[in-house]
């Protein structure tokens, strides 16, 4: 919980420093935004470590196949990083580049979730054929 105050402190000081440099050296103000973003992500990724450990043993206890959980955690990571990069590009004024980063993130998430989609479709068709036989 204490890291929330740290996050707010870093964010506000970085915003002030970036604003200070914007008039003289705009490219360095973007670097400050990148540094602050990375620091904040580092702080939040520690909190997420606890969450993924908890999810792991919950899934083991309930016996659900763990590759679904692995795919879900991977999708979470991809979204996490893609959002980070896209916002920074948009902050630097390159909204087209930001859009491409988001597109790449979506394509990768789709690629990861395809096998799960296949499993669901097999499940559904299994149910349908068993009822159709009645």
């Amino acid at each position, binding site marked *: 919980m204490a890291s929330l105050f740290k996050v707010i402190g870093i964010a506000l*000081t970085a915003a002030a420093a970036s604003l*200070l440099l914007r008039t*003289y050296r705009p*490219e360095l103000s973007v670097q*400050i935004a990148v*540094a602050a973003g*990375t620091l904040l992500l580092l702080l939040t990724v520690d909190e997420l470590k606890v969450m993924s450990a908890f999810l792991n043993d919950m899934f083991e206890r309930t016996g659900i196949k763990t590759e679904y959980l692995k795919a879900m955690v991977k999708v979470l*990571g991809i979204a*996490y990083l893609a959002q980070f990069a896209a916002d920074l590009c948009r902050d630097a004024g390159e909204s087209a580049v930001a859009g491409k980063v988001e597109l790449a993130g979506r394509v990768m998430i789709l690629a990861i979730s395809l096998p799960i989609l296949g499993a669901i479709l097999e499940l559904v068709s299994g149910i349908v054929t068993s009822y159709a036989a009645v």
Partner: protein
Amino acid sequence: MGIEIVFKIAGIGILIAIICQLLKQTGRDDMAMLAALAGLVITLMMIIDLIATLFENVKQVFQLY
């Protein structure tokens, strides 16, 4: 690994801004350009380490290989 990297970059930025202003006054614009470039390269070197640690952490937490 905290707020000091933000202050370091801000310090470099202010220093480079002053140096460039100085060089521009004395008429050496190309040197000013080189000074700005040097500042940017130094800042990028620092940021690359930070992003590398971030990627290692994320790779470990989210098993993203």
